[in-house]
């Protein structure tokens, strides 16, 4: 009797487990037909949502075609290697801008310059800094299609500025202005905390762990992560240290949240300013929207360094995009190209910017005063997202340099910067250790 009871319980468990699977299994299962293309995307709900939007538009436009979305497991680079070894790369794959050069040199992508010319798409329609990244093959051909243009901006909470009685910042502001604003906000931390019903307050969340924030600081002071001519780490080490220290000073003085990846204080009303990019603003809007529907968020460009050592105050930018892999067969090339074309032309860009998280990569759309992306937070300073194009700095510090070392170099940076720098008791020792690790990564 006991045995029967036990078996019954197990049977019930199995049925309850399998039932929802039966329901969810209805969704998947694509046929590997001649008119189906496979697209590999990051395992990230934003990316999946974006590609699904494109997918529905594509399937509506081209009747009879289907798209199979495959999510990446683990890190992108390792996954691509694994799939290459197994001979199962998807037809289109999403890569971030910083990996684009590496994979172009590994012959992962199929050049689309001719296809672009054939269909009347000119490279000049797009932001030049982005096109440079797309053409990292060294032969002037475009290998990768960018989807958006993400410049770092500072988003700020207008309510907190009002409570502290601080003036809203201006796009032309300098680093000194920035630090002064932080100090002014910090002075009224008590009032802000009680108004927002929080126990923690930082003037700014600098997103300091992110290379789009620290690389421009390094480059502005004349340094670089890799000295490409000599093949060593840290070009102009003093400049490197100076740039990084400028950022760490914010955290050391208690103005900025210490570098970490684990918290989102801006959405939680725990900080007044946030260095971010366009895709991030959707969740800020969702969380900070007030009961009357208004959103107390506005944007301002990154401040410029007013240090005499600094020539250009760079602003980090990045993007993500898709490339047609060399694994894509001849018959499917046109199908894949049609998908890419959808993304980079007005139709796809319009679709993407209407979600609020996409800033168009077509210059015409970006400069349009009535563009869709501006409607996301009406009246906000959306110009900040493309102002000062001469200060653009793509994350291409490894472009054209020793492709076999890219993955290791990037790993060292992800491990140490800037959380490790902030936490190090002896910063000089930290920088020396970082240099050694970078040199070791290069030397492989």
């Amino acid at each position, binding site marked *: 009797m006991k045995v029967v009871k036990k078996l019954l*319980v197990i049977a019930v468990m199995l049925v309850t487990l399998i039932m929802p*699977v039966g329901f969810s299994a209805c969704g*998947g299962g694509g046929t590997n037909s001649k008119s189906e293309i496979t697209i590999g995307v990051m395992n990230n709900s934003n990316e999946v949502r974006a590609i699904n939007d494109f997918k529905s538009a594509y399937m509506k436009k081209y009747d009879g075609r289907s798209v199979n979305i495959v999510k990446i*497991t683990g890190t992108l680079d390792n996954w691509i290697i694994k799939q290459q*070894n197994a001979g*199962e790369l998807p037809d289109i794959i999403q890569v971030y801008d910083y990996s684009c050069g590496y994979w172009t040199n590994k012959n992962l992508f199929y050049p689309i310059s001719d296809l672009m010319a054939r269909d009347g798409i000119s490279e000049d329609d797009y932001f030049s800094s982005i096109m440079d990244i797309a053409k990292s093959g060294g032969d002037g051909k475009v290998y990768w299609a960018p989807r958006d243009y993400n410049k770092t901006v500072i988003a700020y909470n207008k309510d907190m500025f009002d409570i502290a009685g601080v003036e809203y910042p201006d796009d032309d502001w300098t680093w000194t202005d920035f630090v002064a604003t932080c100090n002014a906000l910090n002075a009224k931390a008590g009032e802000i905390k009680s108004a927002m019903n929080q126990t*923690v307050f930082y003037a700014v969340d600098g997103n300091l762990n992110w290379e789009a924030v620290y690389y421009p600081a390094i480059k502005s002071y004349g340094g670089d992560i890799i000295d490409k001519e000599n093949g060593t780490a840290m070009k102009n080490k003093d400049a490197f240290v100076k740039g990084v220290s400028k950022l760490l000073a914010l955290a050391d003085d208690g103005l900025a949240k210490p570098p970490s990846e684990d*918290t989102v204080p801006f959405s939680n009303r725990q900080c007044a300013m946030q260095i971010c990019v366009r895709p991030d603003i959707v969740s800020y809007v969702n969380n900070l929207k007030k009961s009357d529907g208004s959103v107390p968020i506005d944007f301002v460009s990154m401040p410029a360094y007013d240090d005499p050592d600094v020539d250009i105050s760079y602003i980090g930018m990045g993007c993500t995009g898709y490339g047609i892999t060399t694994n894509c067969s001849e018959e499917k090339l046109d199908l894949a190209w049609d998908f890419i074309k959808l993304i980079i032309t007005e139709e796809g860009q319009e679709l993407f910017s209407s979600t609020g998280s996409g800033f168009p990569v077509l210059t015409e759309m970006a400069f349009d005063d009535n563009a869709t992306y501006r409607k996301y937070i009406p009246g906000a300073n959306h110009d900040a997202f493309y102002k000062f194009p001469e200060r653009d700095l793509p994350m291409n510090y490894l472009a054209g340099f020793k492709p076999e070392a890219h993955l290791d170099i990037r790993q060292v940076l992800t491990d140490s910067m800037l959380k490790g720098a902030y936490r190090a008791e002896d910063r000089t020792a930290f920088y020396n250790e970082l240099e050694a690790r970078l040199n070791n990564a290069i030397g492989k």
Partner: protein
Amino acid sequence: MHGKKLALKITSYCFLCLFSLFFLFPFVVMFLRSFFTATESLAIGSGLIPKVFYPKSYLDALDPDFLKYTGNTVIVIIANVVGKPLTAAMAAYAFVKVRFKGRKLIFYTAMCTIMLPAILTMIPVYKIFVDLGWNNTLLPLTVPAFFGGGFLNIFLTMQFIRSLPKDMDEAAIIDGANILQLMFRITFPLIMPVIVLVAVQSFFGAWNDFMGPLTYITDERLLTIPVGIYNKFFTAVSPLEAQPNVQMATGVIIMIPPIIIFCLFQKQLVDGVTFTGLKA
């Protein structure tokens, strides 16, 4: 004497309760944190009591991805729970009751496999699976269960078979049964307890297996629960993707089946340890 015993009992009880708090503490934390909203769970210093009570994180945890992973895990578990006890019992029976050439050699070779670090064989086996083309299937996780089931299981079953009385066998042989009939009709029903033990242990092994799916499966749609959750939350690029509250809710959910199975089969598991035959 009675007082001493009572005092001992009380002190033991106190310690046991203290230990229980210690062991339960992480799960209480997990349970409390599962009621946060995603944003609030990412606030600095958010603590354990949410400002907004959000039980919907459990619904968020049961999204189609998670159900997909559960389905895969169920398939793997069924294969393991059926395959491992079956092949282990077959091998154990052969080692104990059947005389064949090379029996000792194969037995000692199998015994030496305990010493092998799992990682040593996993890497070439991955390549074998890729060459076989099993890359995009669940076969790398289900098929090996039908090939022996691990030496410890075989050993356990052997000890149990050895402890059975031999007169049933002799009676059956006199009645003219061949070895297979002997095995299935007589011995197997008697070794049900150890079969159940091996099956239950295979369940836990398959439910909790992390390195296996991580190594052999690259297709996201075929991941099992541990690696699926790891992939979903721990390889996130931005903190919002990591959704701590849904992580906690998922953690609570995946604890439930193993606990249920353990409660059902406690007796077998605990008794089974006695039969490890440490009195070799």
